[in-house]
């Protein structure tokens, strides 16, 4: 799966979790850019990603990504691994 394909699948998940139908994720987007991106919603996001992509994050991977780009990279690495 390419990075663009991952980002494309990520978009509806992020819109649902953060309750914002206009949200357009970009590589540089961080939690500071999204009003509802707090710690609880971050965990909800990561668990929703696990279900959608069929992957499982380690506990320390949950908080590792500092922006959407790093999150996409992490998903790509898990899919490849």
């Amino acid at each position: 799966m390419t990075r663009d394909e991952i980002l494309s699948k990520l978009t509806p998940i992020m819109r649902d979790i953060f309750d914002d139908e206009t949200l357009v994720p970009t590589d540089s987007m961080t939690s500071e850019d999204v009003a509802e991106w707090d710690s609880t919603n971050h965990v909800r996001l990561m668990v929703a990603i696990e279900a959608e992509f069929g992957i499982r994050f380690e506990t320390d991977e949950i908080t590792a990504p500092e922006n959407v780009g790093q999150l996409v990279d992490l998903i790509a690495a898990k899919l490849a691994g």
Partner: protein
Amino acid sequence: MIDLTDHPNLHRLTSHLVERWPDHSDYVDKSFADRTPEVTASSDRIAACILKLAPEVEGGLDGLCDDYRFLCEKIVLPEELHFRRHNRYRLSSFAEAEKECYANAPFMARYMNGLLISNVIWHNHACAISSYMREYLPSRPQGTDHLEIGPGHGLFLYFAAISPNVASISGWDVSPTSIEQTRRALHALGVDRPADLTLQNMFEAPASDRRYDSIVMSEILEHLEDPVAALKAASAWLRPGGTIWVNVPANSPAPDHIFLVQSPEHACELVESAGLEVVGSHAFPMTGATLEKARKRKLAISCVVVGRKP
């Protein structure tokens, strides 16, 4: 950062916390942006208590703030992950919680210190204790005999102790460490009236003629396998017409939470199942969430229920 300079204790506590943990600034702002002036005023009084208690704690205010961060990042987050994956709490028996948490004194000390700060910072915790301070305690009848089961950090018992309508204060706890913590807290906060603090398991309390007009169980039921049995045991110590003030979180994972309360209605059902009449209830959603959103997403809600013994 939100301007709390009108509330000097809150200002000092939150400034110190954000200095120790800058990334928490947005969360603090969000939590205080949603509060009514009355809740903010209660939070200032609680912050004043915490600032008085801080010198008693190892590491002082720095230590308390660091333990609060430890609570958020290292204690709650992994449990939140489990809860979201499996839709249930990780542990389900008291014996497991005892082994993992209660028997680990250094862990429990940090956990309890973190929770002390959460009474100011977490929206649901702040609203729950504020409702106890502003609504429940002032409406108790003159001469109330008041018991708290599991007084822990001592804040709830302290506010009962300074209530003019409360004639006597008592506390029961199964942990000698907790009893000592409550005793030290009341002393540090300047309570000079006698407090009957007893090492007592509520299920094994010896028969006595002693009865109470008011019993508080704050964040106790979620730690028990059978909360209805606990409420029944507690209500046996109430005088007819007496009240139990229950504060129990719904959808709030923690390593020692073993009973999952699903909703505010579920919390009321527990109280009713114990033979008590529900005469008041509140539902306070977690920081940043409306009650509607918290229900929909199964986020933490502090459920306050006042039950009256017929």
